[in-house]
């Protein structure tokens, strides 16, 4: 009996100890690795593609070398990254391809995230074929002729139809709807991750085999495997509206979107120089590709690539410093 009383008492005490000292707001809890040694830390979200790593590499390098911050990067998928940004687990997303639902929820309704301006790069999603294939068959570049080539684009996974290679599950895609609505004799095969998709494309290119893939620019892979975009029915606002209401009705191309930055609301207010610097961060597609290529093709460590770019382009980044 006495033992039981002790247990009850200890349990009650533990409960008091954890709850008694008041509220613990999870949005105020930083990474345990942050601020080691009393430094000011900025945490950047890095998405899985290399362009995003280029942004973070250069921003991080300058924050560390010019402004004296410590920079941590976290790689998570896009939607979880929005959650993390709203909770203050990361301070900034530097390249967002458009998440209207999250934007409405966090920026407009909950006001935990503030827009950080444009990145300066425009992004475009589409369907692409390798240049060697387009050169041999120029009419493949119109979607109306795609069915003619379905037989050539068949693989073991596409089950008798042509294969349309799709990538990571985190990317924005209407491809299933497009294939159905445009009456194409293709099957969407999901690679499951961008790494797998890139590896597959490289492998096709090595053997000069034809392929049709969901892809986007800016992307460093274009330098290694030149690709040409297939023209889809033109993007219209009407089609976009229809698509927002019911994604399965989309029958036009993807829009060209201005890539945006987003900052945590608290960080915007209290982040000081770092927040101002990240708001000013603005560069071109060529700049980003230069860094991305060093990371992806020359296999340089991200900070080494950033260092080289920073040495070459002081005129660009000097303007960002607060």
């Amino acid at each position: 009996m006495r033992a039981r009383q002790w247990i009850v008492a200890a349990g009650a005490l533990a409960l008091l100890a954890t709850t008694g000292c008041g509220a613990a707001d999870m949005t105020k809890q930083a990474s345990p690795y942050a601020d080691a040694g009393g430094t000011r830390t900025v945490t950047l979200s890095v998405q899985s593609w290399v362009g995003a790593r280029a942004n973070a590499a250069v921003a991080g390098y300058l924050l560390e070398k010019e402004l004296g911050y410590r920079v941590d990067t976290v790689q998570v998928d896009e939607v979880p990254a929005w959650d993390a940004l709203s909770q203050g687990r990361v301070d900034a997303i530097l390249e967002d391809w458009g998440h209207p639902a999250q934007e409405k929820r966090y920026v407009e309704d909950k006001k935990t995230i503030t827009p950080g301006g444009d990145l300066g790069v425009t992004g475009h999603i589409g369907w692409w074929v390798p240049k060697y294939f387009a050169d041999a068959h120029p009419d493949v570049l119109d979607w109306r002729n795609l069915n003619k080539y379905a037989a050539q684009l068949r693989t073991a996974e596409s089950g008798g139809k042509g294969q349309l290679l799709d990538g990571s599950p985190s990317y924005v895609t209407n491809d299933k709807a497009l294939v159905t609505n445009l009456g194409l004799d293709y099957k969407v095969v999901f690679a499951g991750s961008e790494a797998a998709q890139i590896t597959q494309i490289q492998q096709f290119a090595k053997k000069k085999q034809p392929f049709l893939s969901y892809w986007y620019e800016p992307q460093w892979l274009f330098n290694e495997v030149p690709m040409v975009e297939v023209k889809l029915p033109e993007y219209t606002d009407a089609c976009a509206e229809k698509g927002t209401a019911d994604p399965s009705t989309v029958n036009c191309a993807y829009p060209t979107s201005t890539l945006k930055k987003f900052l945590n609301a608290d960080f915007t207010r209290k982040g000081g120089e770092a927040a101002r610097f990240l708001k000013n961060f603005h560069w071109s597609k060529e700049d980003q590709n230069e860094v991305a290529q060093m990371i992806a093709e020359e296999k340089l460590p991200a900070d080494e690539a950033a260092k080289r770019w920073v040495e070459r382009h002081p005129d660009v980044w000097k303007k960002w410093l607060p």
Partner: protein
Amino acid sequence: MHGDAAGPPLRSGPEPHGTASGARRPPGRTGNEVDRVSTATSPARPASAAKAKQTAAGAPGARPAADPAPGPDVDPAPGALRALWARPAARKLLVLAAAAAVLVPPAAMAWGSGAWPHALTVDLTGPLGRANDWIIDNRDHHWLFLYFFGHISGAIIGAVHAVYTVLLALGWAGVTAGAGLLAWRVAGVRVAATTLASFAVCGLLGMWVPTMRTLALMIVAVAASVAVGALLGLAAGLSERMFRALRPVLDTMQALPAFAYLMPVVLVFGIGVAPAVLATVVYAAPPMARLTALGLRATDKGVLEAVESLGATSRQRLLTVRLPLARRELLLGVNQAIMMALSMAVIASVIGADGLGDRVYQALSTVDVGSALAAGIPIVLLAIVLDRTTAGMASPRRLWAGAPRGGTGGHKLTTARTRRATVRFATLAAVAAAALVTGDKPWPGDWTVAIAAPVNDAKDWIVDHLYTGLPGIGGTADLAGHYTGWVLDPLRDGLQGLPWWGALLLVAALAWLIGTWRTALTAVLALAAIGVLGRWDVSMDTLSQVLAAVAVTLVLGFAVAVPAARSPRVDRLLRPVLDVFQTMPQFVYLIPVVALFGIGRAPAAAAAVVYALPAVVRITSQGLRQVNPGAMESARSLGATSGQQLRHVQFPLARPELLLAVNQAVVLVLSVVIIGGLVGGGALGYEVVFGLAQGDLATGLVAGAAIVCLGLMLDRVTQPTKAEKKGAGA
């Protein structure tokens, strides 16, 4: 045939025949229908799990199987039928056939004979979506989050921060020396040397800081898992009711793929270290709980009575007898918890856990196998060091392979040795202190070796030569094409074309033949649950992939295990390779696998085979080696060739191990279905990945649940029941 003669097994009692559905059974019964044999199937440590299983088999409290009673009014059938009836397997099948004859026609009439009928599904999208939204809307200000989850998260972050700060303060010299000494104390000189070398390699690869972050996370997670697991195990070990209540929960938790844990934790806690530690604890605590319970329940009744007669209180009995006697199981539990925590710590990089897993994951985005390997090697080394150390603590036998293996562990501390150890301790501590004073705290930056570039070159060379240039079969690309076209597609189409009641019957028959009517019922219910969740077709796709990959694993595994069982040298050469395969994070070999086999189900199968092969090889070769030498000798003296010996003596005598190998292969292959989703495996694996990537709880959680059901079903179908043996043994 009288349908009513079917007896108790597959019919759920009072249902009227007219509306009886083969699938829907009153839920009240399912609670008791868990199997008796625990399935301690840890993906990370199948071999030791196998041992745990064997221990489980001998545990008291496991009731012998209820023999399926033949129906009361059996037809006065002709002699042939009666002879058939005398055989248990045939009897089971006859009963099943009778039940099917009654149940199937009305069910097929009502719902057709295609895939799972739509009328019998439940759509969870709405409720799960609402739960998702509620959490997001409330997690910043609701009391549940502020006063409960917030404190949990805060405590975890505080603990990890504290451990990390200590590790950083110790510096590389302090950590290396400390780990070496600890290993020395508990596991002997050789393990200590391995430890020192491993930490040095982590530093040399330029991975010191990530290694320390992973280590900090691991220390906190393992401490929490061991505490939680030991408490649960204590409760289950002391109370029969608690044991029965916990067992199905633990079974399910272990069948749940690691990725499925991540989603709900991320939703509540956001990304970062706190959810990573929590997911790890949930993943690693069950083996600890299970083994603690087993150890306590296995206490010798005679000893207990003797102690009781001496007037010991129940607490004294627990502390002085039951816990010390269960020491081996407890330490085995710690060992398993550590190994599982490490594999989870890598997967948790997907939700921002940082550390080594994050380096591997980031290397993936640039398709950089070399960098991924540079971060993967420290993980393997950590696994080996932690395993050897805890295994050395547990017993003189190494637990790694589940086989006795020479005596480097089991360090007996005699006084002389203790004294010598103290001297060495002082020396090492002095060295560490000296290094601490003079050297850098983290690993010195210029003491690193870049392995990424040569590894990438090597990978490219291998891929180029294997992709098309394999003699005889063309190349890996063709191989993948044939595997998909000739094996996977027909199998998938066959399974998807199977009428839903046919699949249920098939599973019932298989599970009942190998087990009891309880295991059969669990298997059927699990399969039915998949249908109810509306994931029938997708699950059949996944099932086809799992079955094919298991077949490949078994063929390869047996082919490797036979020479390994015969020649100790082969076995010695093989062991480190198996260790590496088993602990290397799967993220590392995703890219080579895609480069070789292209996108799709073939690379998914390849990744699964690589992961499951070590366990199969180990269990099989151990089984073959344990065959009684006398039996082998007599076979040889009768002039049996080595092939004949294998077929007629070794395989039959090692049957239990071979069956266990099959079971492990199934469970392990299934546990990497989600990794397969990352390379184009599609089906359930892709849906879980999709759910996590899009924050779509409904898709991810339902697909995760379907994987669990598949796992339960496959486990019951492949798990030989030890009922008869147990009855005899207890």
